[in-house]
């Protein structure tokens, strides 16, 4: 797994990434993972709690807000059933 940009988040990120990859390959791709409320949800919350602080400290949160605003229309294109 790749590292986090914030060293202090590495441990919880690693645990989340491992959980996600297992869920993705064993459940999601087999049509058995259809909700956000899965076994990795708690780990994701912990990871985000750590990461949000790091993004704010580095001023990246504002850049991300702008990028999200810029790319909104992509969701309309790619979130459709094809």
């Amino acid at each position: 797994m790749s590292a986090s940009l914030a060293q202090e988040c590495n441990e919880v990120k690693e645990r989340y990434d491992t959980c996600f990859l297992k869920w993705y390959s064993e459940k999601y791709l087999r049509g058995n993972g259809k909700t956000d409320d899965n076994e990795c949800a708690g780990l994701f919350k912990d990871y985000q709690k750590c990461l949000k602080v790091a993004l704010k400290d580095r001023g990246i949160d504002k850049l991300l807000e702008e990028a999200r605003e810029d790319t909104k229309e992509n969701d309309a294109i790619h979130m459709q059933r094809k």
Partner: protein
Amino acid sequence: MKVFSTAITFDYSWEEVSTANWQKYGPWNDKASHVIAVDTLNRRIDPTTGILRTERLITCKQSAPEWLKSLLGHMDTSQVYEVSYVNPAAKTVTMVSQNLTLANLVNVQETVVYKPLNAHQTQFVQDARITALCGGWQRIKNSIEDSLVTRFKENAHKGREGFESVLHMSRRAFAEERLKVQMAV
């Protein structure tokens, strides 16, 4: 604006490729030392379509040419914002990325799509649009765009090689995992 496009076929199933894609910049890839960190910012599943949407922040070592660095200011890292969409019904992974760093000077929009060619092969299609935004100076704009297109060309080959080794290791790891499960039964 300049455009860079490429298409590559991987001899792995779409399921293998879409799984390994999450580990593309991990330790199995020895050709991606410029990627320092990959953070997941957001992730949700659309309950009606089953599409998995993921936002990631990719942190890279700054690798712009020296003349460009001195023009745009020295920085150690650069960042990319990526949104990906996995459509399990259509069997596609679509990743749309753009630069966060120096976004007021140059805009790099990249789209990558992975889709199956057959049960054992997956196609990777990459398309990048590079637009320098600084006013006036057409020659400088052209040079910035050209140097970024060159960078994409150089990275395309490295990207393929690096991902091939991730796919290889991932297949091996899953085979070992299956064997362990079988032995335990």
